[in-house]
């Protein structure tokens, strides 16, 4: 089936409340698996599977000079590597615009929610702070990489520990028992728009047929801490109202998975 036929087929099914893999429009794939501490040399790590979409997150920490505009705060760097191993469509090379957008969406959810108390990462104001390098790698892309990456990121952060610091140098490979100063759990849910319909947790075929997507990151009290409209088409205010109740539901579901897996 070519892409246009597939789109028509998907929209026809959606009219009747069905999806190509048999799910409801607001149904996440099952199972969703979150494993933590999957890579022993990382300060924190996780492996997340949503259906057959799979990503890995890992955290390495270092110390360095703070940014001039935040001398009393640590540094967070988020990167996404779309490994060519995970999809026939990904190519080797530096991060493309899709990888960069995804990394920035994940970063924004963590940063704006104030998930990490960045002031507690300060060692000496203006001189030395902790730097968190959070790297996300795709293992299999079967759609909805944004939510999988965001989920992997918070799971890895939640379980990460500080490495040993001696005379302002990190002793690589030696860890303390002190966890990162985590205050909140921001969870991202992406809705994909196909024709007039919104669905959660789109798979690859649905993503290819889509017009737009909206990623919303909520903290525990359901306040929005980050949002991104992606894709080529626009959405309407009424659409936002429609998706918000779904996002509240789904982020709650995902958050409980994270709190169970990443204690």
């Amino acid at each position, binding site marked *: 089936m070519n892409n246009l036929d597939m789109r028509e087929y998907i929209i026809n099914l959606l009219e009747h409340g069905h999806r190509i893999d048999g799910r409801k429009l607001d149904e996440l794939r099952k199972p969703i698996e979150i494993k933590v501490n*999957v*890579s022993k*040399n990382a300060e924190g790590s996780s492996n997340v599977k949503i259906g057959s979409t799979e990503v890995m997150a890992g955290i390495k920490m270092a110390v360095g000079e703070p940014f001039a505009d935040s001398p009393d705060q640590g540094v967070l760097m988020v990167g996404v590597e779309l490994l*060519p*191993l*995970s999809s026939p469509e990904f190519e080797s090379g530096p991060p493309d615009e899709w990888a960069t957008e995804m990394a920035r969406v994940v970063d924004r959810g963590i940063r704006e929610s104030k998930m990490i108390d960045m002031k507690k990462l300060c060692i000496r104001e203006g001189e030395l702070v902790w730097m968190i390098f959070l790297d996300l790698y795709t293992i*299999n*892309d079967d759609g909805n990489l944004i939510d999988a990456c965001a989920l992997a990121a918070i799971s890895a952060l939640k379980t990460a520990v500080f490495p040993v610091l001696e005379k302002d140098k990190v002793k*690589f490979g030696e860890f303390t028992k002190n966890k990162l100063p985590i205050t909140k759990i921001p969870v991202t849910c992406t809705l994909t728009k196909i024709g007039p319909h919104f669905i959660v947790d789109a798979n690859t075929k649905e993503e290819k047929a889509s017009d737009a997507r909206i990623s919303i990151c909520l903290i525990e009290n359901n306040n929005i801490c980050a949002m991104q409209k992606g894709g080529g088409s626009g959405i309407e205010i009424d659409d936002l109202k429609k998706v918000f109740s779904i996002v509240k539901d789904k982020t709650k579901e995902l958050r409980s998975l994270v709190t169970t897996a990443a204690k």
Partner: protein
Amino acid sequence: MAQAKKTERPDGRKLNETREMEAKVGIIKRADGSAMFRMGKTIAYAAVYGPRELFPGFMQNPEKGILRCNYDMMSFSVTERKRPGPSRRGVEISLVTKNALGPAVNLDQFANTVVDIFIIITQADAGTRCAGITAASMALADAGIPMKDLVSAVSVGKVNGRIALDLVKEEEDLDGTTDIPCAIMSRNNEITLLQLDGDISEAELIEAVELAKEGCHKIYEIQKEALKEKYKEIKNE
């Protein structure tokens, strides 16, 4: 007693013993073939895509398909963060990996195409190129690429003056350690990867390569088992 302590291996293995191994085939759904191989704490994932059309066209070979290989490590797979993206080390390992696998595959029927092999190390404790080759070889078989044999790889070396199989990081980092990564096709014992760094005599080298051969034969059995396992699952579905 002190003497005995010194020659003991950090994880208590015998000199001719490999670490505990685990292999799984078909782990990446979108790939044409894929596999995971774990050697102790070293974990490699490999995926194969192709044969697929090769661009740009001038790189195509009208006689047969070409093999391409890309090896990399996750930034957090090692104790000191590795910057994501290509490195000189990665480029060299990609090349020797391609050369290690090339003799096993036959791409004569796939003119103008490419078979891509991607290897990523998720956790490293020495022997990552060997684990990568072992995983990639299973992924190639899983993708249905015509092969004359599987390729199995292991590192051997001289640690504290004694020849040992399958070194861990702690042994590799000791002063005076010689490290010899080897890849072997078990059916005819053809060696397709051989690298060495250190200081070793001719007799010791031969002893080491013989030991690698034994190790590869064990890995070979595990590879075959993992491949059969995948099709057992399909049969039972």
